[in-house]
């Protein structure tokens, strides 16, 4: 089985002190630490597990600057067999369609049975690239998978749908699946593991290699542009519920119900 995993290097914003750049549409990244997008990590783990079960080959791919090689190395350390780095100045500023187009060009001529991506990226949070890539490749797709198995030429996916429902879908391969939290517990990547793959060759493909020109990708090829990013204004002060432990819990549940949290 040939599996392709599309991954992305994103800033870890959980503990970072976020500062908006002067342009108003980017983050100051002096103090930002980058890592593989959390959801993509589930995709890598799923791909490696499928390979361990069924045999085959896993290729990790990313569209990103030179430093994105880090996340490809990490994917190799987790057990992917190959990595492909799609990098070109012309790719900078691509929107989801642009990124999907780059990936589609890189994937179209390769053999593949299954493409896995993260459900969403931690920085952009749109969840578009996976579905757009499936559309460009003209293959079926399922989003937000929480379970995934492959049997011969079909994949069975458990995934979330609206209203808290879950659904089991069967899909003929080749197909694309976007991966959601809960799909698996990604393996740990040790420093030694990273060092072991440090010598592995990672082929680089540029716009020319993919027959792309600047009008199709990058800022010029984007139909979507960010207007502004900002930290939401601080809300009003927290309200402290008073009373005994039980009374507080009761009040809290009541309030949450009233506000439609359940």
């Amino acid at each position, binding site marked *: 089985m040939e599996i392709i995993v599309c991954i992305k290097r994103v800033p870890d914003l959980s503990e970072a002190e976020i500062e908006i750049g002067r342009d108003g549409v980017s983050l100051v990244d002096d103090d930002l*630490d980058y890592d593989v997008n959390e959801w993509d990590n589930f995709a890598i783990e799923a791909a490696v597990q499928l390979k361990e079960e069924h045999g085959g080959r896993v290729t990790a791919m990313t569209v990103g600057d030179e430093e994105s090689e880090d996340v490809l190395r990490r994917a190799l350390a987790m057990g992917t067999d190959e990595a492909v780095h799609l990098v070109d100045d012309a790719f900078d500023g691509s929107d989801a369609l642009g990124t999907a187009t780059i990936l589609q060009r890189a994937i179209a001529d390769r053999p593949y049975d299954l493409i896995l991506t993260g459900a969403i990226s931690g920085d952009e949070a749109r969840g578009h690239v996976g579905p757009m890539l499936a559309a460009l490749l003209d293959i079926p797709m399922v989003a937000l998978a929480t379970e995934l198995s492959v049997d011969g030429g079909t994949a069975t996916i458990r995934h979330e749908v609206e209203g808290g429902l879950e659904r089991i879908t069967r899909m003929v391969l080749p197909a694309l699946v976007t991966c959601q939290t809960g799909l698996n517990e990604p393996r740990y990547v040790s420093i030694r593991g990273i060092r072991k793959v440090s010598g592995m060759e990672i082929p680089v493909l540029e716009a020319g290699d993919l027959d792309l020109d600047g009008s199709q990708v990058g800022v010029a090829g984007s139909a979507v542009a960010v207007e502004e990013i900002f930290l939401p204004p601080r809300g009003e002060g927290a309200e402290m519920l008073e009373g005994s432990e039980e009374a507080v819990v009761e009040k809290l549940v009541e309030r949450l119900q009233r506000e439609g949290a359940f």
Partner: protein
Amino acid sequence: MPPAPAAQTYLGLSGPALQLLLLVLSLGAFSFIMWKRIGLLRLGAPDPRFDQPGTRLKNLLIVGFGQSRQPRYPVAGILHILIFFGFLILSVRSVTLIGEGFQPGFAEIGPGYSSVKDVTALAVLVCCLIAIVRRAIFRPARYHDRLAHASHAHEAYIILGLIALLMVADAVYEGSAMALAGTDARAFLPLASGASELLAGSATGTLEAFHLTGFWVHNAALLFFLCYLPVSKHFHVITALPNVFFLNLKPVGEIKPPRHDEADLDEIEALGVGKLEDFTWKHILDFYSCTDCGRCSDHCPAYFTGTPLSPRMISIKCRDAAYTGYPILGGWKPKAEQPVLVGETISDAELWACTTCGACEEACPVLIEYVDKIVDMRRYLVDAGRVPASLQKPLADLEKRGNPYGKPSRKRAAWIEAGKEAGSGANPEGEGERGVRTLAPGDETDHLFFTDSCAAYDPRIQETAGAFARVMTAAGADIGTLGKDEVDSGHEVRRLGEEGLFEELRDTNLEALGAREFKSVVTTDPHAFNALTHSYGLEQPVRHHSQVMAELIRNGKLDLRAPNDDRVYTFHDPCYLGRHNGEYQAPREVLDRLGLRTVEMERSRNRSFCCGGGSLYLFYEGESESRMGEARVAMAEKAGAQVVVTACPFCLINLEDAIKTTGREGRMEVVDLAELVDRSLSAPAD
């Protein structure tokens, strides 16, 4: 006269021929079994344990022949000491009785030895009977491991029964001879005389039969005993002394390198221990030497709080796996087909439950090592990517930011600034006094204060660091930190098996340390103290703040005021200060000098009970029935203490937490030693 066993004929076999037959059969079987057992040792990883023969001999005399670890359990310990010395004394008798099978009179080596061996035999017999009754009727909880799958208890009865049989058979042999000779006791032989009195009045033929039967039963039982030892848990009779001789001579707090024959981590093919043969030969010898006595698990805080770990079962299960995979009879399976050790024989959860406190090793009478084995198996898990989710985030943060909290590295020295702003005096601007400084590369100081992550980022522990800084300032000491150039010491990183990350953290710190001039390193964290002392190879001495403060007080550098406090204090020994580094005195000296009322907990000093583990263990979410910290504050309360003093940031966090979760808030308090000294500096004069 009693008939000489060697002069008789048995079913056509002469006495010496029968003795020879027994001897050849048993020695043949014994050699074959030992050859197989040693064969497995030879498959183990290398471990250089032949250095420092003098020190090894000394330990053999103290811990082996001196039985120094036995008295911790008075009843079992004294029984064992008596049986052990009984064995030594009676070994002469055993050999001479075999000689007696070849030549009449061989066993008569003088009335002096006869008396000694007879009294000894009586004592050993009584000890065996007490031990049997103890096990069968009083059933000490220690012998019944909650996590044991297969019981080896029957082996204890077989061995105790065999020893008792040896004593009785010899008594019958000797007693019947005395009855036949009709003489009064020639020497003081209480056991033989007793047997003689019981047999007195029997016909001569019966006495002769008793005499010969006693002899051959003794010799046959002895030779069977020899062969039974290496297939039972009583292999320790043979392996315990070598196991003690080959003890671990590196400092207790140090972790063994992944391989003794390959220093470069990246050159090691399979990291850690995943299969039995990945253990060093000495660690396999440990398995042979375990007697299933349960002293380790009886002291293990993880076992106490109901986690899946029982150190004793690590030894027992590995030994069972060894004997299954490498049986005495039948072929050995090739390595590739051996049972899966880590993940099946020993579960992942078992391995992560260990806080590496070292209580088990301190309790083991034959010096079996556990921490190194557990760390070796974790190294395998880490290499295979099998790390619990709760530990992956802090490990990733350590890799990226040098601390497990995910805080920015540039904020590492922020506590010093915060102390200044809040006027808490971590950096007071008093004239002539120097507070704690953040050292730039090229700067000099006397005391380099290695804060480590917890003191740098945890608000509660920042107070401890501040208190220590104030104490140092009051003493006029020059103290500085590495500031944002410091990263985590990597102590727990290494113990969790992430050797590569440990090496990176250590090298980052060494670079920062190398860029500054200092006379000594001081830290408030015993874990950092242990890592810096044993794993960093620094030229400068590394000291724990308790040692520095004890010295300052001793030298009159601190102006301490009399305490105005009638509460009772107790000192909780942090594992990595006490057990792993032998420092029990300095913190107690400080407490004494402060003039506080103190009391000792039952489990103190080298028996101290771990608070729950430091650094990364604070993040680990494993299954357990209760929490170590909660058990510990209950112990402090039982000892009559209202204040628990410790000298470790993690002990402070865990015990403070436990006081809250057990509803002891307001009744009990936990403080760091530095905070106590700081309080007595600023206490108003009476």
